[in-house]
């Protein structure tokens, strides 16, 4: 239904002239929620999202009446602070790109700031536990990694919440940051967040986004390169069940020469009205010579009644690049595959498990954190068992 509505329209009926920072967004990025008209659902960036399930995060009616508990566990060499809105370090990675992110930016009261000093190499991950205790909340987090420092940060979302948030990653020159964000919410939660990474000179950013839970999850992982030589790897896994809406909207802004990006998101879907949306926007600007980028999205539909919208976009403004490509496929686990595996003695539930594990295996191995990998695999098992039961 959604795809029959023309894209690119704005609330005042005029088509934007002149490109905002992201060519496919109808309103330029801004910290101020007032700069964004209330979306009506036909805008390109909102056309897949069921607005009525955002609980007012998009139209100003959401009131911060809830609580989200943020606990940071960190090894030595990490500074953890809770700061006010006026802290000058906030907002440097980039501006909010949609009304919900701007609402979060305009509404949060305290921000968590995690700093890894320059040249500090952490041997243990920093763990940020975000636990929803019901109601609506607005949050802001900043992770800053100094020059030549190396860190792994695991952000774990659990519980129930209606949460709008911005998470910033500021990665110093030559630094390496891996961020694993797990959305393991209760099935009642609504989570809309923008994760913006500013990648320094010769710095490496690796993002792993894992989404299982929630009634509605809508994430914007974004990468901006502050200087040449940056490298970004963005991996994602999602398992979308009955009635869940899980949306991942990636944007990689190649605005600087000689940067690389690699995106691989994989999702499995099962059950009635399971809806996954994947948008992969890569923009290679005229200045970004020597860019090397590839993005991939694969979906595996396990049952009838599920829906996938997968939209890779590649916009290239210079021919002086190393490589640029994208791929998107959505396949079904078909009765014929099930028959084939069963005809070799493999029971139906095990056959399904074999296929799903195989589908995710390569990506799971990219995470590089055994405890997260384990948890992920057991989560996949649990999701599958629920489907078989």
């Amino acid at each position, binding site marked *: 239904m959604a795809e029959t509505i023309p894209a690119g329209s704005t609330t005042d009926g005029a088509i934007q002239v002149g490109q905002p920072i992201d060519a496919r967004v109808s309103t330029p990025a801004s910290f101020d929620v007032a700069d964004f008209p209330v979306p009506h659902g036909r805008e390109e960036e909102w056309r897949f999202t069921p607005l009525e399930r955002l609980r007012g995060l998009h139209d100003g009616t959401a009131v911060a009446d809830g609580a989200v508990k943020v606990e940071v566990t960190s090894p030595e060499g990490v500074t953890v602070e809770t700061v006010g809105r006026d802290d000058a370090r906030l907002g440097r990675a980039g501006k909010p790109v949609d009304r919900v992110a701007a609402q979060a930016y305009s509404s949060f009261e305290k921000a968590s700031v995690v700093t890894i000093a320059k040249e500090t190499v952490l041997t243990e991950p920093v763990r940020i536990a975000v636990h929803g205790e019901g109601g609506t909340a607005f949050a802001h987090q900043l992770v800053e990694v100094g020059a030549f420092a190396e860190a792994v940060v695991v952000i774990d979302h659990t519980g129930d919440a209606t949460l709008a948030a911005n998470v910033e990653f500021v990665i110093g020159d030559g630094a390496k940051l891996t961020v694993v964000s797990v959305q393991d919410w209760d099935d009642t939660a609504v989570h809309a967040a923008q994760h913006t990474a500013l990648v320094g000179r010769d710095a490496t950013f690796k993002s792993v986004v894992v989404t299982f839970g929630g009634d509605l999850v809508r994430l914007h992982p974004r990468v901006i390169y502050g200087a040449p030589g940056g490298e970004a790897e963005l991996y994602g896994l999602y398992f979308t069940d009955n009635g869940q809406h899980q949306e991942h909207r990636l944007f990689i802004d190649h605005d600087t020469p000689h940067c690389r990006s690699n995106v691989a998101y994989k999702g499995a879907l099962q059950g009635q009205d399971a809806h996954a949306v994947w948008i992969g926007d890569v923009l290679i600007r005229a200045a970004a010579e020597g860019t090397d980028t590839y993005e991939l999205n694969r979906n595996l539909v396990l049952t009838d009644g599920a829906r996938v919208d997968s939209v890779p976009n590649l916009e290239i403004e210079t021919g002086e690049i190393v490589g640029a490509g994208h791929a998107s496929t959505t396949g079904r686990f078909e009765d014929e595959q099930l028959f084939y595996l069963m005809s*070799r003695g493999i029971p139906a539930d095990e056959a399904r498990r074999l296929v799903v594990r195989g589908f995710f295996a390569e990506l799971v191995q990219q995470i590089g954190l055994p405890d997260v990998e384990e948890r992920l695999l057991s989560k996949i098992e649990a999701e599958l068992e629920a489907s078989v039961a």
Partner: protein
Amino acid sequence: MATLEIHDLHVSVEAENGPREILRGVDLTVKQGETHAIMGPNGSGKSTLAYSLAGHPKYTVTGGTVTLDGEDVLAMSVDERARAGVFLAMQYPVEVPGVSVSNFLRTSATAIRGEAPKLRTWVKEVKEAMARLQMDPAFAERNVNEGFSGGEKKRHEILQLELLKPKIAILDETDSGLDVDALRIVSEGVNRVRESGEIGTLLITHYTRILRYIKPDYVHVFAAGRIAESGGPELADKLEAEGYEAYVKGGATL
């Protein structure tokens, strides 16, 4: 001794204007150590017989019985049939993306044997079986049937036959689409399994060509959903000379 008994089997499929009967009373007994060739023109129901025995959900059994050593095969699910010892080498094996051949073979062997094969002996077993079928070892790391050539798919089917050691093997047009070399290699694989004397083979084919490599004990001509004539290997020679003409006259095909 394992015996597959098919008695008065009737099978239909769902067609646009209601169910259509394809098998119209098939009677056949296959004993361990025997090889039966089932030959017939296109559309005579040969493949339907193969898939019905394996339990494909597309086919509905409307009458008759199938037993393996007295056990009711028709009451078993697809995987139960396989574990009971029925193996179907498919004409068009299905691609299973994301599942490597080695993982698939091991999972399957574990299910059929009732316990996971010991890793060390298993690796050796697979390697040797692949070598006999002249399969590149790199094959094990590819996804099941994904991007396989026709010949590779058939070798992979016979590899499974060798590893899973069923009581009854149904080979559905395993010869189709194979060049002479591949046909020889695949036939040798089937013969190795047959030589054990522990398997009953149901060889379904359109052509007599494969019978030069795999010698049947019995030949049955399939027409219009049932066995029209049975005999020894000499019946194949007759078919080679005369074709199926005699069996399709009078609109006997479906």
